[in-house]
C-alpha cells in the first residue's frame, strides 16, 4: 500500500487537500486525526463516497448515528457489534438483514453522517492527514456521488453562515423550551432562509426536555440546518433556553419496560435469596448434634480397627520376646512398641496378664 499524501492541516489546509484530490480525481482513503478524533473519508475518482469517524468496527459510526437518531436501540447496536465481529459482516448489512432498519433509511443516515463528519472537520483548526491511494469498493452509482470540490464549496459556505447564527445556540447541551404558538409559522417562513417544514420539524422537537444535540439528532437534518432553524426560532421568540441539561437523558421507559424491570428484579433476587437460604440450612446442618442420654454411644469402627491392628502388632512383639528368651515379659512396659501401640489406641490401656501357660493380651475396649 503506497502513501500518496501526508501532512499537517496547519501547513496544508483541508481545503487544499480536497481540491487536490478532486482535481486529480484520486481514488482512496483520506484519514484525518485531529481535535475531534479520527475520521476517514473515502473517494472514488475525486468524488466523496462516504465520511465517518473511525471506530474499531467498520461502519460502527453509522450504527452509532442510527442510535442517536433513535432508529436503533442501543442494545441492538451492541448485538450488531458482536455479530459483526463474529460474522465478518458490516453493521448496516446485519441491521438490514434482521429488519431493524430498512435500506432507504440506512442510505439517508449514511448521507447525514457524511455531511456531519465533513462539517465537523471543516471546523478543525489543527490535525494531520494521510491519504492512501487504494481501491474503494461501494455500491452507489458514481453519478450520485458529489465531487470533492463541490462539497468543499458547500462546506465553506456553511461555515461562513455558521458564524452568523451559532452564537444564538452556544452549546449543544442546552435545553430549549417552546415559548410561542404555531400560528406564527407562516409569517416566519416567508421572512427567513430556512424552509417552513424545517422550522416546524425543529419546533415540534423542542419540548423543554431534549438537549440541543438530541433535537439535532432526532431531526435528522444535520447540525448546520438544525442549529440554524433553532437559532431562527429563538430569534423569533418562539423558543427560549430552559435550562442546562445535567446529563444525557435516558431513554424513556414505557409501562412494559417497567414491568420487565420489575420481573428482572424478582428474577434476580429470588435465586439469590434461595441460595442464601440454602447456605443457612447447610450451615445449620453442620452443627454437631449433642449427645442425648439413653442413646447408644457412637463407635468409630476405624478407630477400633486401628487399635485392634496395633494390638496385633503388640502381641507379635510379646511373642517375639518370648521366642527370644523363652520367658514371657513381665509387663508391656518392657515391650518397646507398647508406647506407640498405646498412641494408636488413643491412650487407652491394653489388658495384659501372665498365666502359667502363656499371656493374655487384649486390645482396649472402645
Amino acid at each position: 500500500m503506497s502513501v500518496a499524501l501526508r501532512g499537517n492541516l496547519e501547513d496544508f489546509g483541508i481545503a487544499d487537500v480536497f481540491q487536490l484530490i478532486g482535481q486529480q480525481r484520486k481514488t482512496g482513503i483520506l484519514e484525518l486525526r485531529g481535535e475531534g478524533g479520527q475520521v476517514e473519508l473515502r473517494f472514488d475518482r475525486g468524488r466523496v463516497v462516504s465520511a465517518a469517524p473511525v471506530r474499531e468496527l467498520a461502519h460502527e459510526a453509522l450504527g452509532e448515528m442510527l442510535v442517536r437518531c433513535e432508529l436503533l436501540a442501543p442494545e441492538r447496536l451492541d448485538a450488531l457489534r458482536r455479530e459483526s465481529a463474529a460474522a465478518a459482516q458490516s453493521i448496516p448489512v446485519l441491521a438490514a438483514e434482521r429488519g431493524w432498519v430498512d435500506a432507504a433509511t440506512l442510505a439517508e443516515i449514511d448521507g447525514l453522517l457524511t455531511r456531519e463528519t465533513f462539517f465537523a472537520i471543516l471546523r478543525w483548526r489543527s490535525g494531520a492527514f494521510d491519504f492512501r491511494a487504494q481501491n474503494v469498493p461501494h455500491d452507489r452509482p458514481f453519478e450520485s456521488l458529489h465531487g470533492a470540490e463541490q462539497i468543499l464549496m458547500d462546506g465553506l459556505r456553511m461555515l461562513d453562515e455558521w458564524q452568523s447564527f451559532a452564537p444564538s445556540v452556544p452549546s449543544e447541551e442546552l435545553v430549549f423550551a417552546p415559548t410561542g404558538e404555531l400560528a406564527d409559522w407562516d409569517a416566519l417562513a416567508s421572512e427567513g432562509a430556512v424552509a417552513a417544514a424545517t422550522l416546524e420539524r425543529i419546533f415540534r422537537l423542542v419540548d423543554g426536555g431534549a438537549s440541543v444535540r438530541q433535537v439535532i439528532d432526532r431531526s435528522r437534518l444535520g447540525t448546520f440546518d438544525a442549529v440554524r432553524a433553532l437559532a431562527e426560532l429563538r430569534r423569533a421568540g418562539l423558543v427560549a433556553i430552559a435550562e442546562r441539561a445535567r446529563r444525557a437523558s435516558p431513554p424513556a421507559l414505557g409501562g412494559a419496560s417497567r414491568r420487565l424491570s420489575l420481573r428482572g428484579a424478582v428474577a434476580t433476587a429470588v435465586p439469590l435469596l434461595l441460595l442464601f437460604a440454602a447456605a443457612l440450612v447447610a450451615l445449620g446442618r453442620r452443627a454437631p448434634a449433642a449427645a442425648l442420654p439413653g442413646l447408644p454411644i457412637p463407635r468409630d469402627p476405624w478407630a477400633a480397627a486401628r487399635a485392634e491392628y496395633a494390638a496385633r502388632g503388640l502381641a507379635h512383639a510379646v511373642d517375639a520376646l518370648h521366642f527370644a528368651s523363652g520367658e514371657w515379659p513381665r509387663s508391656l512396659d518392657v515391650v518397646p512398641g507398647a508406647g506407640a501401640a498405646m498412641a494408636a489406641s488413643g491412650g487407652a490401656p491394653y489388658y495384659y496378664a501372665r498365666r502359667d501357660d502363656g499371656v493374655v493380651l487384649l486390645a482396649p475396649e472402645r
Partner: protein
Amino acid sequence: MVERRRVVGGAGGRRAAAAALAACLVALAAPPRASAADVPAPTPDPAPPATAGATAAADAPDLIERAWLAPAASLSERTLRTRRAALEAGVWSLDPAARVLLSGGEESAEERAAAAAQLAPDLPAARMANALALWRRGDAPFAAFREALAALAAFARHLEAGLWLAASALALLALGLVAGGLACALSAGAIAAPHAAHDLGDALGGDAPAFARMALVATLVGVPGLLGEGMLGVALGIFALGALYGTRRERVALAAAAAAIWVGLFPAAHSAGRCLEALAADPVAAAAAAADRGSAGRVEMARLRAAAEAGAATSDDPLAARVLAKLARREARLGEADARYQPLLGATADPALLNDAANVRLRLGHLDAALDLYERSIQGAAQPAVLFNLSQAHARSFEVEALTRTLERAQALDAELVAELTSVQGVSVAGDFVVDLPLPARLLWERLARAGDGRAFAAELRRPIAPGRLGAEPALALAALAAPVLLGSIGGARIDRSRWCARCGRRSCPRCDGAARDAELCGSCHRLFFEPDQTQRELRVARVAALEERRRRLDRTATLAALLVPGAAGLAAGRPLRALAACVSFAIALGALVGRRGVVPDPWVAGAAGPAALLTVAVAASAAYLFLVASSLSARRSA
C-alpha cells in the same frame, strides 16, 4: 505352599530397568521414622547366643521352641535346626523367629535377614528385609529385586498381611473410584452449568442477570444435599446437568462415573471393611492362622479348644479340631493328635488334612494306614511335600524302588523343595522326618470372607460423602445415581439447549440467536466458514485470523491443563471416558502414595513390603495416568 528360591542369572536392559524400579521401591518403602500414630517394629531381645539357652530349651514344651533355644555353634545351624523342627510341625513360615532375627542380634544384618527369610518365607516383612539387605550389599541387585517380588507375592500366602494389604488397597480403590467419579461429574457439571443457567433463566423469564441464573442452578443442584444427602446428593444434580447438556460420549462417561462412585461407596468400601473386620469376626480362624505360623498364645489356644469342643457337639467347626491335632503332634502327643484327626477324615478330600493325619499314623507305627492316607492325599493333589513324606514311608518299609520312584516324582514337581527338605532332613539325628502341610489358604480365606461383615466400616467410610439415606441403602443409591443420568439423557434430546460454539466459543442459543438445534457452530461462524460470499473479505480475513489465534491459545492452555489437571487431557480431546479413567488413576496413585503405610497400623507382618506394595500400586496407577494423558494429547492432535 512354601516359597521357592531360584538363583538369579543373566542380565539385560529389562532387568536393569526392573532393578532400578526395585531400587526406587525399596528406597521409598524403607521403614519411615516412627510417629505417635504408628506402631514401630518392637525390638525384643535378640536371638539367643549360640552357646546359651540350654535351660530354657529344656523347659520349652514346644519342639520348635526347643530347637530354637537349644545351644548352637552358629546362626545357620540354629536356623537349619529350627527350620527342620518347624517343617516337621507343619509350620512352613515361623514368624516369631523371623521377628526375633529382624529385631537385632550378634550376627550381621544380612545374615539375620537371610535367616529370617529362610525361617519365615511367607512373612512379607522378612522377605523385604532380606531384599533390602541384598540391595545394600550392592553386588546382587537382581537377587534383591527377585526377593522384593517374593515379598510382594508373600502377601497372598500370609493371611494377616494379606488382609492388611487388601483392606488398605480396597480402601484406596474405594477412595479413588469415588474421588475420580466425582471429579469427572464435577467437570461435566461445570461445563454444563452456564448453559443450564442461561436456559433456565430463559424458561423462567424476567431477564435475570447471569449471576442470578447461576445462583438458581446452584440452589437446585444443592437441594438433595440440603435434604441431608451430602456430597452424593449434590453429585446427583451435577450428573443431571452433565447428562442434559452432554454429548453421547459424555453421557456414557457420566454413567461410568456414576457406576464408579457406587462401586467405590458400596462394594469396594464394604470389602475393605470385611477385610479389616475378618480376623476379629472369626477369632477361631485367626487363632488357627496364628497356630499355623507358630505363634498361638494362650488366648488363641483357649479359643481353639472352646471351638473344638463346640464342634464335637455340633460338628460345625472342624478347623479348630484340625489345628489342635496339629499342635498335639507338634508337642509329641501323638495319641491325642490321631484321636482328633480320625473324626475329620471321613469323606474329606483335603490333601493337607490327609497328609497331616498320615504323618501322625506314620509316627504311631501304622504304616499301612499312613500309606493309604498319603495315597488319598496324592489322588486329591500331587504335592511334592506329600510325595516326599510318602517316600519316607516307603523308606520305613524298606521299599527302595518305591522310595526312589516317589522321590523322583516329587523332584519332578519341585526339585528345589525336595532339595531343601532333604537338606533339612540331614540335620536330624533321628529318622521319621515328615512334614505337615500348612492350612490351605483358600480354606481360611473362604471362612474369613463369610465371617467379616464390614458394613460399619463401609458406613463410616461413606459418612462424609453420603450421610443420608443414599449412603444407607445401596439399591436406592444405585437408582438415584442412574436416574439423573437416564433422565438427563432423555431430557437433553428434547430441550432447546444453548451451547458453546465450537469455533468462537460464544454461547449459541436457539431462542436468543435463532441458532439451529444442537448445531456445533453459531450462526456467525457458520456464515464465516460456509457462506463466505455473505461476508466482507477484509472482515473475514481478520476474523479468521482472530479465531486461529484463539485456537492456538486454547491449544496451549489445554496442553498445560492436560499436564496439570487430572482428566483435563481427556476432556480436551473429547474423550470423556479417558478423562474418567485418568481421574480415577490419579486419585488412586495419590491415595496410594499418601497412604502407603496402610489404613491401619501394620501388625508387624508387612514391614517395608507394605509401603512397597502400595507404592507399586501408585506406580502402576501413575503409569496408567500418564498413558491416558499421552494418548489423549495424541488424540487431540490427530483430531
